[in-house]
């Protein structure tokens, strides 16, 4: 067992999978000697060489396209987008090409690859280093979207993503990269299945469905409600597409109330989809409208600390939202 942060867990997953399967390769900007701007690929080039750990030109569309070309030829590329915000120049390659290869070819071609990107805010990154683009990618059939919130999940889910036959967008909450350390299992024991949510706090009065950095914020918010006799059950989705509807439904059937807590802009965020699905599935069990606790509809947090604070959800804001729901 090794105490590892989330970013170290990502690196361990890459290391182990590259050791296990020599078709696995890593490509992206600064992933080589520097080991990535967040150090997620640190030491990999020294261990596996400049071919399997390749510094790419500063051109996201070609990063996605080259990864796709490698995947079509039987390699297993893990491409890094330096920030999720910068995956947009590669958007066409991801949603029109990679996501649809299998469907367009009636199953003749497949494109198993992983695109990793640090996501979300709260690190003074401002507009272009703080966005939460998961809704864009979750909208696209053919892609799977994973967004872990703990070192163990990051490691286990990334290993599973690398072994998965479909293309995967793997979003890593950068705010959590160094937030906590966990003892991590190694090898096969570390694997986590895609598409399975985790009930990370039990509670009888309301259900909070969340993912990524918001898991930690919602946990703190729940702790504030506890003294008032409001017990919040918290579900960390861990995978957004496919997401684990059943675990959420089971919980809501017990609690009768649900809030979706997500860091992205409120309108059209993936939380809106979760809310709609749960409203449809759980209507008969609900004692209150499904509510969304999300970030405001401005283009991600500005640089100034006061504006960043105004944008970000925090335990106070989430506790307020949950309390309102409990009292409805």
């Amino acid at each position, binding site marked *: 067992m090794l105490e590892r942060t989330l970013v170290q867990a990502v690196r361990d997953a890459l290391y182990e999978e590259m050791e296990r399967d020599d078709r696995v390769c890593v490509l992206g900007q600064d992933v080589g000697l520097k080991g990535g701007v967040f150090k997620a690929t640190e030491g990999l080039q020294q261990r596996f060489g400049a*071919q399997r750990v390749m510094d790419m030109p500063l*051109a996201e*569309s070609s990063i996605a396209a080259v990864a*796709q*070309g490698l995947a079509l030829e039987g390699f297993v590329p893990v491409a890094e987008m330096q920030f999720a915000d910068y995956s947009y120049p590669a958007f066409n390659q991801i949603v*029109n090409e990679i996501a649809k290869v299998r469907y*367009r070819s009636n*199953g003749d*071609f497949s494109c198993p690859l992983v695109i990793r990107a640090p996501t979300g805010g709260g690190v003074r990154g401002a507009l272009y280093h703080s966005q939460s683009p998961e809704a864009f990618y979750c909208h696209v059939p053919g892609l799977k979207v994973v967004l872990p919130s703990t070192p163990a999940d990051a490691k286990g889910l990334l290993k599973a993503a690398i072994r998965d036959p479909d293309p995967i967008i793997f979003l890593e909450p950068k705010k959590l990269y160094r937030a906590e350390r966990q003892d991590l299992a190694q090898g096969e024991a570390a694997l986590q299945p895609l598409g399975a949510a985790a009930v990370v706090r039990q509670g009888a009065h309301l259900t909070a469905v969340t993912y990524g950095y918001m898991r930690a914020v919602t946990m703190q918010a729940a702790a504030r409600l506890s003294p008032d006799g409001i017990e919040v059950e918290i579900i960390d989705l861990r995978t957004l597409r496919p997401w684990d509807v059943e675990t959420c439904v089971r919980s809501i059937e017990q609690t009768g109330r649900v809030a979706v807590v997500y860091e992205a802009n409120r309108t059209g965020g993936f939380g809106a989809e979760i809310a709609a699905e749960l409203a449809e599935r759980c209507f008969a069990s609900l004692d209150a409208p499904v509510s969304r606790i999300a970030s405001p509809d401005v283009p991600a947090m500005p640089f100034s600390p006061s504006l960043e604070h105004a944008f970000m959800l925090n335990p106070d804001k989430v506790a307020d939202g949950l309390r309102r729901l409990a009292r409805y």
Partner: protein
Amino acid sequence: MPEAKPLTPERVLEAYRTVLRARALDDRRFVLNRAGKLAFIISPRGHEVAQVAAITALQPGRDRFCLYYRNFAAALACGFTPEELMLAAFARAADPSSGGRQTPGNFGSRRRGIVIGSSTVGPQIPKAAGIGLALKWKGEGALCYVSFGEGATSQGDFHEGLNFAALHRCPVIFFCENNHWAISVPQSLQVAGPGVAERAAAYGIPGTRVPGDDFFAVHATVAKAAERARSGGGPTLIEAEVLRLQSHSTDDDQRAYRDPVELAAEALKDPIPRLRDALLQRGWLSPEIDQTMRDDVNREVERATEVAEAAPEPEPGSLGHHVYADA
């Protein structure tokens, strides 16, 4: 390194037959379109000789091909049959490229090394660079051929693809079919600078312009690029100048934006008679053999049409198949 197959008279005649097949298919598709049986056609008319000459210099079965939507003749040269292309035209379940999911012209066949195409302009260019990288890693001497129009060279993906392939000396042949029009936009409003071939210099790779109606010139240019790619020399950019003898597609009418005098002049420069004359001159073809080939090809296309028209459509229940590996 296996040698490229020499250009024997037999191979040239086979290529000529492929050119005739492409034209006969095209003629037939337009008839079917006017009869309301085919919805949408993109014609290779004017590009056929360049396409077949290029593929004839390569090794289908060994090399990879990222074709674009105007590559009907190239697809035939890569091994697609007229029947298969008709199945795609009718969007039948047995269309080998996509089972009737994509518009005809998005060719794909894994066993033939033809990488499934898409309707977007340009994304196949950096993809081909990635495939080239993989082929280089595999070290089997295979190369990746990617084709596109001159309009596609305005896309960022063109520049990203050339840059990457040049940086890593990927075995890629970038083949631009320059018909001087991107729908209604002429080259002069699309491509800054003298043309496409010159752009290669910026990436430190060879760039060649070649008349696309000259079978032998195109073949020699592609063969040279192939030799360079297979021996580790890296990519080449080729610009074949061709004519667009039809409108962009059946949704377009080029008479609305092109000079009628120019159109009439171009119609007289159809590359197929030129190839036929070259073969007659060399004594590789006689008018009788030419006629026999045309009759054969027409019968083939007729049969392909009958089979394709009678073939079943995709099952509605298959709509959700192949979104993910397990469905």
